[in-house]
C-alpha cells in the first residue's frame, strides 16, 4: 500500500507537473524529468554523462547542511535513530533575487527589509511539508551578553508577473519571535511553516516575500550591559529551509519501521517472568543505572 500510494501520488504529481516516472528509462530524460536523487542516477547510467553543470550553492548554506548531515547520519551514511523519524528530506533554498528595500536602523536594531524570491522547483509532488524556517546567519561570528528579542514581519507576495492581482492579495504575517543568542552563535531560525504550508501544498513553483526583522535590547538590560548594539548589518539575507516527508516508495520511512518494530521490553513482558525483577533489586539497579547515566 505504501508503494501503491506513493505511485498514485507520483502519477498525480505527473499530471500536475508532467514529470516522468523517475524509474522509466523508456524515453530520454530531459531537464524537467529530474524529480529526485535517484532519477539523476538513472540519467547518468542512461546517457553516461557525469551529470549536467550545476549552479554552485552558497558556501554558508553548504556548511550548514554538512553540519545537519553529520547530525542526522553516520560517516557511512546510515541515518541515526536520534533524529526526528518524521521527515526524510530537508531542502535548503537560497534566494535567487534579493532586493533591500528600507535601510536598517542601527539604533532600534531593525534589519534592512529585504525582498526574497525562492524557486521551489525541486520540491516534488510526493514531498509533504512538515516545517519551514528562514535561516539567518551572521557574516562573522559575534557574541551577545544575553537573549535578544525580535519581531519578524513577513509579507508573502504574488509573483511579479501576476501584477493584475490587486495588492490586497498580498498576505502579511506578524511574528513575535523570541530567540536566544549565545556566544559564537552563527545561526538562528524564524519558523514560517504557517504561511508557507498552503503555498508548498499547492505546488507553488516560486515564493516571493519581504521580511522585516526588528530586534531590541533584552528587557531590563541597562545600556551598560551591551558592549555594542545589536549590529543588524551583520545579518546575511536568510535561506529557506523546508523539512519534508517524501512519501514515495524509494524514500526511507523511519517512523514506519519504528512503529512496527516490537521493543524487547514488550517481548519480555509477553514472556511474563523475564521482565519481573524483585522490587528492591530493580529499584537499586534503577538508581545505580540512572546515577551511572548522570
Amino acid at each position: 500500500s505504501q508503494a501503491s500510494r506513493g505511485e498514485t501520488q507520483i502519477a498525480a504529481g505527473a499530471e500536475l507537473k508532467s514529470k516522468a516516472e523517475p524509474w522509466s528509462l523508456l524515453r530520454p530524460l530531459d531537464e524537467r524529468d529530474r524529480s529526485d536523487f535517484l532519477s539523476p542516477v538513472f540519467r547518468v547510467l542512461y546517457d553516461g554523462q557525469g551529470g549536467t553543470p550545476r549552479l554552485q550553492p552558497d558556501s554558508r548554506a553548504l556548511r550548514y547542511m554538512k553540519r545537519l548531515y553529520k547530525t542526522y547520519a553516520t560517516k557511512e551514511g546510515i541515518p541515526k535513530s536520534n533524529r526526528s523519524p518524521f521527515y526524510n528530506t530537508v531542502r535548503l533554498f537560497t534566494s535567487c533575487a534579493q532586493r533591500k528595500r528600507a535601510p536598517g536602523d542601527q539604533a532600534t536594531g531593525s534589519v534592512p527589509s529585504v525582498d526574497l524570491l525562492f524557486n521551489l522547483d525541486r520540491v516534488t509532488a510526493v514531498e509533504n511539508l512538515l516545517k519551514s524556517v528562514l535561516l539567518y546567519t551572521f557574516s562573522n561570528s559575534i557574541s551577545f551578553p544575553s537573549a535578544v528579542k525580535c519581531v519578524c514581519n513577513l509579507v508573502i507576495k504574488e509573483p511579479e508577473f501576476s501584477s493584475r492581482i490587486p495588492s490586497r492579495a498580498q498576505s502579511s504575517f506578524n511574528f513575535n519571535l523570541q530567540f536566544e543568542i549565545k556566544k559564537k552563535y552563527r545561526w538562528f531560525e524564524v519558523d514560517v511553516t504557517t504561511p508557507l504550508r498552503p503555498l508548498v501544498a499547492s505546488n507553488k513553483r516560486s515564493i516571493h516575500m519581504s521580511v522585516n526583522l526588528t530586534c531590541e535590547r533584552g528587557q531590563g538590560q541597562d545600556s551598560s550591559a551591551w558592549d555594542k548594539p545589536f549590529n543588524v548589518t551583520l545579518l546575511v539575507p536568510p535561506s529557506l529551509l523546508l523539512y519534508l516527508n517524501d512519501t514515495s516508495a524509494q524514500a526511507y520511512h523511519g517512523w514506519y519501521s519504528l512503529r512496527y518494530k516490537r521493543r524487547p521490553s514488550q517481548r519480555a513482558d509477553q514472556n511474563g517472568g523475564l521482565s519481573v525483577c524483585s522490587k528492591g533489586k530493580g529499584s537499586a539497579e534503577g538508581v545505580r543505572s540512572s546515577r551511572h547515566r548522570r
Partner: protein
Amino acid sequence: GWETVSLALNKTLVPTSLNLSEYFKQFVFPQHECELHDFRLSFSQLKWDNWIVAPHRYNPRYCKGECPRAVGYRYGSPVHTMVQNIIHEKLDSSVPRPSCVPAKYSPLSVLTIEPDGSIAYKEYEDMIATQCTCR
C-alpha cells in the same frame, strides 16, 4: 590410516570412478558459500562527487556464492528453494540452481547539490544490503 584404507579399496577393485574424496565433496559445505561481501566505493570514482556531497564513501555490499543444498535453516529459504534444487539435480539441469540474493537492506542518507544550486538532504530505502538468502 588414509593410505591403508585407499589401498584396501584398490585391492577390493572399487571402481576407479568412485573416489572417496570426490564422494565426500558433495556433502561438504561449498567453499564459496552464499554470503555478504563488501564493495566500498567513493562517489569521486563515479565522478559524481560534484553533486553528491555526502557520504564520501558508500558500501552497498552484495551477495555472492553458491547456495548449499541444505538451505533451509541457514538462509531462511522457503521450501520452494529445496524443490528447485531437486529439479535442477534430478529432472532438468536447464532449471537454474537457487540464486544467492540480498534478503534485507538498510537505508542511506545522501546530501546532494541540485541543478538549481539548492541543497537536499534525503534518506533512501534499500540502499545497503545487510543479509543474503538463497531463492
